[in-house]
């Protein structure tokens, strides 16, 4: 997991338990972890101190993940972005397709293994490539 070790990552999810677990996984992998429980707070945190990688849930209060992806890729195109979703009104696939259109480097449907998310993050930070769906 060298791609994550020592790198700053920002994790956004309005499900506090998932945010805590995701943070524990990235922390154990050696990342410098920042968290935010809504899109607005997450974007403000990123703007103040950009991260190498952002993992964002799609359905969040105040500012949704697809908007976050578009804003990040517009202002900080070098930042890697992974969008994750458990679906909502239109299902995970539709939300994740929107995230890909907005510029997400990768998308992941819940429930996906944490190990898979960490591998994806490491891959993106090590070897930038095209958008991928998992």
């Amino acid at each position, binding site marked *: 997991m060298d791609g994550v070790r020592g790198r700053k990552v920002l994790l956004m999810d309005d499900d506090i338990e998932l945010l805590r677990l995701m943070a524990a996984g990235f922390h154990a992998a050696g990342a410098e972890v920042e968290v935010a429980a809504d899109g607005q707070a997450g974007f403000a945190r990123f703007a103040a101190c950009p991260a190498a990688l952002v993992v964002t849930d799609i359905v969040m209060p105040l500012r949704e993940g697809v908007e976050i992806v578009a804003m990040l890729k517009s202002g900080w195109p070098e930042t890697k972005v992974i969008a994750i979703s458990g*679906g909502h009104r239109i299902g995970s696939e539709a939300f994740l397709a929107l995230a890909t259109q907005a510029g997400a480097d990768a998308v992941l449907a819940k429930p996906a293994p944490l190990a898979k998310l960490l591998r994806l993050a490491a891959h993106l930070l090590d070897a930038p490539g095209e958008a991928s769906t998992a």
Partner: protein
Amino acid sequence: MNGNRRNDMSELRHALNNLFTAILWTTELALEQAPPRDVKSALEAIARLAQSGGDLVEDLRSDAAGGGMSWSG
């Protein structure tokens, strides 16, 4: 199925997906602690069940999108 019912179902699927994700991630983090073999087996079983739960949620979504649901067993 009216709009409120669809919203209820989509919110339920979202909640279930988040629940199964939390179970799966908790289990993975516990496995990182190198537990005894019997505990490891139990944790691996829980992880498989959580992923199966996610598959069931996806089946529910697909069935609902197809206009009907069928259950057996």
